């Protein structure tokens, strides 16, 4: 029966249909996640407790969620701005590592006035992230090398570089793990006194607002959409295609780099082997679910931060593994993407 039906692309799926499919997908994804958790040994009654009450309705949970969301917002924006010009940045983690390395270097070797320590870390982290994405960008522009592969592989290279440093010159001799020494306090974001939440939240707020403003209210965002949808038409109508694409891709790398700084200066206060883990996948999930819209990136990053918070609780109390959290993210992403299919296409039967 199915082979006599065919798919027709909907011309103009309305707002209602789009939102319904989005919410429907979200519910399916959450249900799948719940089933997975119950199957892994979490009592069904605890789900509500851990998820809703512990993460959203307790002060501890909220501050943890907010803290976890900060780097997520940055990588989500990073993935999103590149996506707007159809550049698939699958190397968010690599750029994040480079940003972490650059800011660690400043923190460990920092001299000069202490007030300049964090600003220097910020600038160098952004530059390092941008430099790391400049390589695949150049390869793509010059020889058409597919950025999906080059950014992804450079991510592994960056991780090897981190290991090289952690097992080598930066290793803290007083620690049996491959980690750097704790940073001097001048390189910490000020802790605000609400859980772990730190002053990095102001930086993230300023960055997110600026990007929202640039992408939604300036000609940059307008050009970016034109370039992303149809670069040939954009070129033919005289738009600055190259500078827009290059600018936003470099911005993407810089944002990832700053995310690396946010983690080492905000919560870890040192560089270790796991600070960047999992951010690539989260970045893609966030940017996709937010459809690369900056304000939605913020909202979804907080939702994902909550998943991390809940995940931490589950880890501690029910010895659920880290992988389960990634699995849950995946389940939610896949079901929302599948639901989008139904708002984009309708199923038709041939007339005779």
């Amino acid at each position, binding site marked *: 029966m199915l082979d006599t039906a065919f798919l027709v692309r909907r011309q103009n799926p309305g707002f209602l249909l789009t939102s319904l499919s989005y919410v429907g997908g979200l519910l399916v994804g959450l249900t799948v996640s719940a089933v997975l958790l119950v199957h892994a040994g979490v009592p069904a009654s605890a789900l509500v407790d851990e998820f809703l009450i512990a993460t959203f309705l307790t002060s501890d949970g909220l501050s943890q969620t907010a803290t976890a969301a900060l780097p997520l917002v940055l990588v989500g924006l990073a993935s999103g701005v590149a996506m707007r010009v159809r550049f698939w940045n699958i190397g968010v983690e690599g750029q994040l590592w480079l940003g972490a390395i650059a800011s660690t270097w400043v923190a460990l070797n920092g001299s000069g006035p202490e007030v300049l320590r964090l600003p220097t870390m910020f600038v160098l982290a952004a530059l390092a992230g941008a430099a790391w994405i400049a390589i695949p960008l150049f390869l793509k522009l010059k020889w058409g090398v597919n950025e999906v592969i080059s950014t992804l592989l450079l991510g592994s290279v960056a991780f090897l570089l981190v290991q090289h440093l952690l097992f080598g010159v930066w290793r803290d001799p007083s620690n049996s793990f491959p980690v750097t020494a704790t940073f001097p306090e001048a390189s910490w974001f000020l802790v605000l006194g609400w859980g772990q939440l730190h002053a990095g939240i102001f930086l993230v707020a300023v960055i997110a607002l600026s990007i929202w403003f640039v992408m939604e209210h*300036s000609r940059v965002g*307008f050009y970016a959409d*034109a370039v992303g*949808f149809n670069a040939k*038409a954009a*070129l033919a*109508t*005289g738009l600055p295609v190259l500078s827009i694409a290059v600018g936003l891709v470099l911005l993407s790398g810089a944002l990832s780099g700053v995310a690396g700084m946010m983690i080492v200066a905000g919560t870890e206060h040192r560089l270790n082997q796991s600070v960047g883990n999992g951010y690539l996948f989260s970045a893609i999930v966030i940017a996709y679910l937010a459809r690369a819209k900056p304000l939605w990136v913020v909202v979804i990053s907080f939702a994902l931060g909550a998943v991390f918070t809940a995940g931490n609780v589950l880890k501690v109390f029910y010895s659920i593994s880290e992988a389960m959290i990634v699995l849950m993210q995946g389940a939610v992403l896949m079901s929302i993407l599948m639901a989008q299919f139904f708002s984009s296409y309708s199923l038709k039967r041939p007339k005779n």
Partner: protein
Amino acid sequence: MTTALQQAGDMRQPLGTPAALLMRGIGKSFDGKAALRDASFCLEWGEVHAIVGENGAGKSTLMNVAAGVYVADGGDQSIDGEAISLRSPLEAAAAGLGMVHQHFRLVESFTVAENVLLGFGRKAAVKTLTDAAAIVSAKSSEIGLPVDPHKLVANLSIAERQRAEIIKVMLLGARILVMDEPTAVLTDEEARTLLSFAQRLSRQGHAVVLITHKFREVAAFCDRVTIMRHGETVLEGARVANVTEAEVARLMVGDALTVAGRPLSRPGDVCLSVERLSARATAHGQSLNDLGFELHVGEILGIAGVGGNGQEELVACLLGLDRAGAGAIVLDGQDISTAKPDQRREAGLRVIPSDRFDSGLIRELSIADNLALTTVASGSFGGPFLLSRRAMREKAAEAIDAFDIRGATPERPASLLSGGNAQKVLLARELDHGLKVLIAHSPSRGLDMKAAEFVRSAIRRAVEAGAACLLISEDLQEVMSLSHRVAVMNRGRIAGCRQTGDVTPEWIGGLLAGHA
């Protein structure tokens, strides 16, 4: 219209055997637009039969019906005397008819042998790659078209691909071979090889259909010729020996040369001059060789020509999308040949591309966005950095009113517009105050009569108001009715240029067919 010619067609010798392919009263519409009306065709065994006609005449559609790619809306068809109604190319192949399409249909990442194996399907006797390669080699030497069965299709030249396609079709059992404009992509030498192969095949008793634009090939290699115009057969199966090139040209072009309606303005000073323009070909395109022309203020210069003779490349050069070429492009005394697209726009160049959603409009963006694409840079919507969406919407609402764009609101995506209304959006954007030279490439292609007339009169008015227009079109009627002068483009050059009043069917037909 019964002429001596058509009688010549009817007087052919009855051969006693049933026709290889007989088509009667074939009709076919796409989206309510008729591509074929009452078309007919008769192919005998042992002949090479040419089908000629302008672009869009319905040649490919007719043969696609014959090959089971399209199902006709009406009419009868028989192969070797047996009435059939084909529903798929596989059924056509089973009946002994194979077609080599204008755009090849081989899987590029497979070898030739793999493609042949794929074509055979599951039930065939040939099951292994070794066998497939062996029969490809055997067939290849039998018919004298060399092809290496183990080469990847992606690595084959155009001519080799075509040979592979022919061998595949023959191996699937074709005794009737249909080739859709096979020589358009070949060099003269390759074309000669292919055409003599076709002749050999017919002498062995097969039947060959050859779609072409070139009278030279018809005269030298074909036995009979069928001419199509506007979806109808205007000359059916005349012996080639009985027709002249001039007659063929006139029948192809029809009454296109009698319509009038060009702008009332009289051409003034030169405002665009192109000299010795050369550029490389795009994929499957034609390079430009030493092309030149002059365009005057208040003038429409029509460039006629069969598609694929360098029109796309010319537009890309003028627009600044391809800046690798050599030559001078002078607009209003200013050499713009190295300028970027936005600088050329600033100098007064505007364009209506042949494929509006490829390089003119952006489907996903709203109508307001599309209208603003070219003017945001000048700061007319909110200054040097900010963007006022409200100003864009207001401007769009004015344009929608002024150009009577149906089904449009500023916020709707451009993809929802019908062809004619999308073209109006493009006109509203391109025919602005800064316009000096308009490049209009097939501006009414795919539009219904009313929309086409709207587009033409908008261009006419713009030229009367002091602009100049280079009208590049495959539609002769359009070129003849709008232009002050007519030039013909062939193989990347301007093959000839005349005042419209001096154009004769023989002259234009000869140049179109590449005979000058």
